[in-house]
């Protein structure tokens, strides 16, 4: 049972990616970066993508000769990570270990809001800076933290954007169903979506939550079918989202618009075949939305890091598959940290914190800027969501198209058949 491994601290197979740092003297110094990954448990798949993104960043920095500071110091990133098994208790024990035993310089986050919440407490307790790669929860960022920085667009915007998109597609939509996983992230998303839907004059005819790990969506889908909404919004993470979509399809529920969290942007979502067709998903990033240096100039901010195409190619070469937004998020977290260290000119926490507070960048992941307000310190304020839709080509093959925003659009949105 997963619980057997809770906590226990101790060093699971550590992935030491970058070259081992050589000693103390003038040569390159090691920059230790710690995080946990969910090698087992509910968040396994998405966590793996995120870790791959982080690894790619570290590899590229190492190949490029490390992070070069103004005073001539060269920092080689070394990643230290453990398996958190998607459990909060374990996350806390392992972050304590990373900070105190492994003496990491900076922290990146685990994947998913629930785990980040747990990790953030430990990071904050120890005054370590943590850049969160894979968590969008708003509440976590409103807890008075001073050293936690969020790369993702906050959860509250996931479905509000989808509602705008939906009404742009078909203003006649009135009845909607909101069905979400009962975890920190999805609950936050739904909590923001409900008043927004109401403000748009929409009527919520089904409002349900389901436990993490649910596989039988029969009762919920029956309720949805009986209420006959025009649209279904919700979901949670990958596995449940995919299963939910399949159940909706099997029961032939008619809805013109279905938007699910997390699962649709992941390429393997298409494994369910026709059940995936026309389903919309909010995404933090898509390869076709090519942010570039020109756009940065236009927005009067600086561009940082590789171009989208280069990242995608390198990722494909390294891991044999296209990156998902979780991969790009992991990579972006590394970039954000790298830029802050370069700007600070040292790894002194106060200096890096100040640099992060000032940061306003355009990267391959999009624009990144953090709140400096005491109440929401570190919360992402500039990054924008992308919306994808699974669409069938003439030959019946399915693929994702970006349907929003206009700038990166690869196909117009279509109502679900």
């Amino acid at each position: 049972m997963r619980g057997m491994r809770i906590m226990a601290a101790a060093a699971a197979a550590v992935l030491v990616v970058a070259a081992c740092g050589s000693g103390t003297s003038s040569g390159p110094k090691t920059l230790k970066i710690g995080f946990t990954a969910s090698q087992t448990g509910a968040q396994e798949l998405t966590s793996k993508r995120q870790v791959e993104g982080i690894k790619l960043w570290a590899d590229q920095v190492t190949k490029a000769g490390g992070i070069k500071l103004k005073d001539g110091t060269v920092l080689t990133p070394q990643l230290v990570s453990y398996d958190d098994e998607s459990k909060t208790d374990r996350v806390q024990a392992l972050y304590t270990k990373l900070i105190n035993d492994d003496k990491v310089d900076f922290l990146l986050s685990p994947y998913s809001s629930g785990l980040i919440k747990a990790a953030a407490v430990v990071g904050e307790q120890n005054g370590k800076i943590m850049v969160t790669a894979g968590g969008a929860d708003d509440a976590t960022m409103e807890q008075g933290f001073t050293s936690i920085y969020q790369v993702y667009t906050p959860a509250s915007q996931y479905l509000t954007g989808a509602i705008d998109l939906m009404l742009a597609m078909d203003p006649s939509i009135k009845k909607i169903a909101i069905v979400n996983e009962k975890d920190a992230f999805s609950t936050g998303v739904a909590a923001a979506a409900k008043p927004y839907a109401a403000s748009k004059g929409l009527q919520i005819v089904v409002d349900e939550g389901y436990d993490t790990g649910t596989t039988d969506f029969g009762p919920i889908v029956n309720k949805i079918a009986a209420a006959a909404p025009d649209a279904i919004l919700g979901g949670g993470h990958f596995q449940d989202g995919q299963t939910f979509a399949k159940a909706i399809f099997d029961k032939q529920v008619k809805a013109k618009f279905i938007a699910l969290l997390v699962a649709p942007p992941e390429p393997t979502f298409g494994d369910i075949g026709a059940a995936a067709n026309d389903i919309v998903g909010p995404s933090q990033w898509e390869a076709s939305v090519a942010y570039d240096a020109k756009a940065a100039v236009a927005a009067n901010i600086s561009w940082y890091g590789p171009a989208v195409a280069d990242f995608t190619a390198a990722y494909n070469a390294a891991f044999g598959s296209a990156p998902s937004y979780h991969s790009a998020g992991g990579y972006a977290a590394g970039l954000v940290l790298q830029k802050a260290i370069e700007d600070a000119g040292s790894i002194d926490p106060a200096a890096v914190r100040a640099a992060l507070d000032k940061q306003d960048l355009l990267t391959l992941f999009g624009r990144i800027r953090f709140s400096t307000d005491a109440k929401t310190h570190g919360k992402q304020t500039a990054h924008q969501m992308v919306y994808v839709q699974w669409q069938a080509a003439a030959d019946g093959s399915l693929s994702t198209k970006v349907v929003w925003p206009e700038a990166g659009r690869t196909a117009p949105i279509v109502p679900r058949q």
Partner: protein
Amino acid sequence: MLRLRGRSRPFLPVLLLIVAVVAAVPLVTGNPSMREELFFMLLLVTLATSVNVITGYTGYVSFGHIVFFGLGGYGAFWLMQALGVHFLVAAVLGVIPAVLVAAVVGAAVLRLRGAYFALATLGILEATKAFMTNFDPAGGAVGLSFNFSIYAQYGGAKSAAELAYVFMALVALAAIAASYLVRHAKFGLALMTIREDQDAAVVLGIDPARTKVAAFVISAVFPALAGAAFFFKNGIIEPGSAFDLTRSIESLVMVVLGGVGTVAGPVIGAAVYEWLRGFLITSPALASFQLTIAGVLLLVVVLFATSGLVGVLRARFPAVREWLE
């Protein structure tokens, strides 16, 4: 005149001293990582020692004992978060829901025997967890979390963690002392009589219903205090970690590993279990098979060393016998 057993060696002071000295190490060295590990070990010692009172002494296998840990945790957490009550006060008040549930539910389910009781406790745990998952005033599935500023009144998050640790250590020591006192009191004799033969106990003048409920309540107090400390330190509480069935069963595993119905057994069992898990996880060759290995070891103990480590030690080393109870 035959020599009366017990009290021949200062067993309790020695055991408490050993635990206290070990617990003091991270405070002296100031090693937070070790403090975290020992915090968890002391927590496990508390859980195992407590469940041993109802399961080891009284013979009632409680699968759902972790429910008291969760109730104490939630109770104290809510008091701290919503009403700003100081941790020490909240921890003590947090015991109230656990004790009430133990008394009321205990009176009902302790009428059941054997597997029926075990299943009922499992049902109570799962029902509580399912309820808390849906109970929005307590945060539902997401649970509750502190605003970080709450730690300011304790001199910052670091000293709050130290306060929680010291509290946890004291709870563990109190649990061990209580276990010893129960074991060596008339009350403990009544419990063991009930364990051996409840019908005979009645005829001998023991009131099983009241005695069992008292034992259940005692065994609920320390997990509740431990829950308050654990979640205060963590800063978040959610149903999954507060009412974890696996951890509940694990505390029984520790009891059996150390020696059912003994005072030292749960302490030794919890320490060895946690140490072993740490060892397995750190060993690269064994890490991925750590659960398998843990299972095999448990099976070996259950099948071949029914009296646990304490039993093995006492059989092997007669010199140790009088020091281990």
